[in-house]
């Protein structure tokens, strides 16, 4: 077997000898995962500060003079792009994907470790180029995170010179980095699983990351294409996207380009991107719920099929982001229909999560709190998605705060809750230390209630017609005074939630030194990463022999078993049988 050749050989793979090989130019998937995660969290904190600055302006207009209209748009743009691409995508796939795939599949490392290392360094370069745009003349681009032409590269938009070019260059680098990492993730899942780990025995975390990576590999090229063409429009003066625009009586610099073409390309990437972030979250949250409810996941096969169905459907819904851009009404009908169809597999997942909790032995640990919080925010964001997926309802709500509330709930807060839950869940394995449970719970409640205080009122603002993307609302007749009061309240809530991140950071950093030593399997989980001989796992993960898998990942509370969990690598006891069917047999 080919996989045995990679996985079971005696000599350690790319064995590091020096400090630099071990921690800097490391080819170990665990080190690369931590490098990815630390950079992603750092750049995410930058984006968090930017959102705080935006909220200061929106909540208390005219009070903070360091936020002018230009910088406001720059903050909006950088906040959105960083959060979606450089934080969430990088953290879920580069961070958790790198850490979990080899460990959960029973492999020693990724199959192309050198390319994996390059992936991180190119990602870091992409982040540096992105952040460099804060320091160039004109500052970063302020075109909005969708970077629509013509305004993105037209004079008058902040950062229309250097800022946008650096942004596009950084995105192209990110895509190269992602492709190198992504090829690793899919190949490792397909080729380097240990003996007995069939696809249908893989934990749902791996399924989510696997399918999300395939989506990324097919969808990111669309962003690459648009970035290349827009760079050429901005630098060489081509007219792919730029129409003829005449300003102050001067001859137009471009002729006949199609801005709508950019929107199609952008959203052909942009919508799958939602699921590139969501599918790993779906997978991870399934494992958190099952482990901490001590119950097998409800409907495992349905969960896998739903992940595949959502992945496939996510490629045929992109134009629902463009209802107001103008399109053939039949297209609108088509995209509204596909958008609503995607709710079916998504709803199956939500039902299965709830049914997993049903009569489970629920342990309200910190990761479990975040996982349950995710179910709330995801249902909330998903339901408002049904409103916006319908063309006729979308038209009046488009470009209002309803949309801001919707997408933050569904693809901002929900995945971030899973990120926090996942960090709290795997922290003992990654660091070998336990964290402070009380601080973790304080962090959860501040984040969960705080985000509701931020985004729930935004839906009301949207229904009142408050437009998004405005630097200041000013005094207008159609907006009652309460709008301004609500805006101030949202800002206060946002600052509290941002502050709660400090609790998280303190807990994570302080526990590295002061935390109790973690046992190798503190949550009594079944999946392979908790069965490593060392905690944290050493280079090569498994010691001399690879694990062998004998059962699926969800043997919790098996009747008759001595413990309420049976790890995947425990052979089947003929007297006990396996899994949930055992109860029926006896």
């Amino acid at each position: 077997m080919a996989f045995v050749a990679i996985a079971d050989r005696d000599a350690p793979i790319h064995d590091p000898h020096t400090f630099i090989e071990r921690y800097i130019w490391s080819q170990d998937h665990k080190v690369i995962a931590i490098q990815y995660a630390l950079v992603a969290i750092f750049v995410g904190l930058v984006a968090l500060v930017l959102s705080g600055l935006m909220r200061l302006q929106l909540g208390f207009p005219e009070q903070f003079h360091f936020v002018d209209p230009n910088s406001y748009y720059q903050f909006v743009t950088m906040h959105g792009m960083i959060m979606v691409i450089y934080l969430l995508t990088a953290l879920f796939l580069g961070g958790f994907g790198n850490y979990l795939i080899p460990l959960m599949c029973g492999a020693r490392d990724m199959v192309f470790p050198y390319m994996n290392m390059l992936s991180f360094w190119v990602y870091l370069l992409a982040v540096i180029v992105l952040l460099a745009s804060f320091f160039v003349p004109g500052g970063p681009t302020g075109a909005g995170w969708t970077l629509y032409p013509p305004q993105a590269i037209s004079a008058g938009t902040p950062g229309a010179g250097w800022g946008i070019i650096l942004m596009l260059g950084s995105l192209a680098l990110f895509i190269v980095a992602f492709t190198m990492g992504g090829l690793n993730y899919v190949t490792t899942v397909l080729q380097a699983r240990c003996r007995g780990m069939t696809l249908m025995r893989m934990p749902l975390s791996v399924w989510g990351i696997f399918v999300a990576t395939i989506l990324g590999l097919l969808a990111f090229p669309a962003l690459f294409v648009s970035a290349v063409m827009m760079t050429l429009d901005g630098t060489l003066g081509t007219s792919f996207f730029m129409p003829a625009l005449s300003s102050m009586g001067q001859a137009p610099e471009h002729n006949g380009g199609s801005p709508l073409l950019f929107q199609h390309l952008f959203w052909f990437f942009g919508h799958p991107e939602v699921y590139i972030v969501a599918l790993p979250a779906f997978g991870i949250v399934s494992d958190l719920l099952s482990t901490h409810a001590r119950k097998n996941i409800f409907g495992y096969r349905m969960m896998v099929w739903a992940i595949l169905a959502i992945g496939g459907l996510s490629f045929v819904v992109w134009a629902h982001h463009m209802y107001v851009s103008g399109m053939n009404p039949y297209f609108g009908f088509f995209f509204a229909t596909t958008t609503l169809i995607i709710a079916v597999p998504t709803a199956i997942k939500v039902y299965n999560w709830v049914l997993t909790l049903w009569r489970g032995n629920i342990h309200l640990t910190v990761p479990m709190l975040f996982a349950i919080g995710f179910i709330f925010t995801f249902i909330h964001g998903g339901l408002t998605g049904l409103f916006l997926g319908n063309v006729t309802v979308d038209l009046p709500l488009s470009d209002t705060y309803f949309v801001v509330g919707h997408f933050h709930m569904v693809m901002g807060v929900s995945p971030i809750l899973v990120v926090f839950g996942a960090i709290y869940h795997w922290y003992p394995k990654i660091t070998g230390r336990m964290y402070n449970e009380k601080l973790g719970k304080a962090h959860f409640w501040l984040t969960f209630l705080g985000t509701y205080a931020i985004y729930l009122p935004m839906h009301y603002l949207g229904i009142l017609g408050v437009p998004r993307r405005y630097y200041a609302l000013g005094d207008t007749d159609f907006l009652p005074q309460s709008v301004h009061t609500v805006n101030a309240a949202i800002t206060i809530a946002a600052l509290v939630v941002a502050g709660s991140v400090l609790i998280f950071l303190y807990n994570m950093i302080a526990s590295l030194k002061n935390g109790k030593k973690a046992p190798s399997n503190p949550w009594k989980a079944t999946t392979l990463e908790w069965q490593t001989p060392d905690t944290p796992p050493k280079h090569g993960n498994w010691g001399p022999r690879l694990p062998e898998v004998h059962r699926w990942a969800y043997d919790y509370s098996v009747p008759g078993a001595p413990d309420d969990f049976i790890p995947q690598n425990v052979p089947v006891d003929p007297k006990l049988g396996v899994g949930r069917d055992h109860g029926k047999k006896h």
Partner: protein
Amino acid sequence: MSNTAIFIALATGVVVWFVVASRLTAKPWAGETAGDVGAVRWPAARIGLWFFMAVVTSLFSLFLSAYSMRMHHGLGWCHLTIPNLLWYNTLVLLAASVAMQFASSLAGRGRRDASRNALVAGGLLTVAFLAGQVMAWQAVGPSLYFIQGSPAIAFFYVLTILHGLHLIGGLYVLVRTTTRFAAGAEIIDLRQSLSLCATYWHFLLLVWLAVFGVLLFL
């Protein structure tokens, strides 16, 4: 976006095949089944190459979709005058692909020297193709003036450069394999590299035929 839609349909077909082939209907909770060994038997490099080719297919499908949409939805389009040189270039790339296939098959039969010669010939033909493409730029529109003035010419540059860069990536692997030949590596150890090179060259030939076809007929 019709090209891309076709590609995605094909990709979905692959997924459906995958679902059937991998028996995603198995009931993992019900215990062990015969032959439960897990992973796919292909070597990692081959799986990686096929996924990479899927990424490149997506990239070129999207560029060709953009070409078609820019033609139909934008203004100021004038069709490209296809230089005859491109036909010769196509033949040269076809010959490179055939040479790579020979290099791979001869390696399979253990004929080391013949395989190496075919590999070098494939590399030289590829360099000739790239030089031909640069000459084609001269024929299509040799300056920034043309690139700015005609989106079709701008597309021609972008598509040929992108395709050329992928070939240059292939040449990097080809040079490394040639170096291993020179260093006296056993033919049996080179078979996989040669086979993957051949696959990649056939793929890039197909990509070029798709690009050339769109330029000719759309």
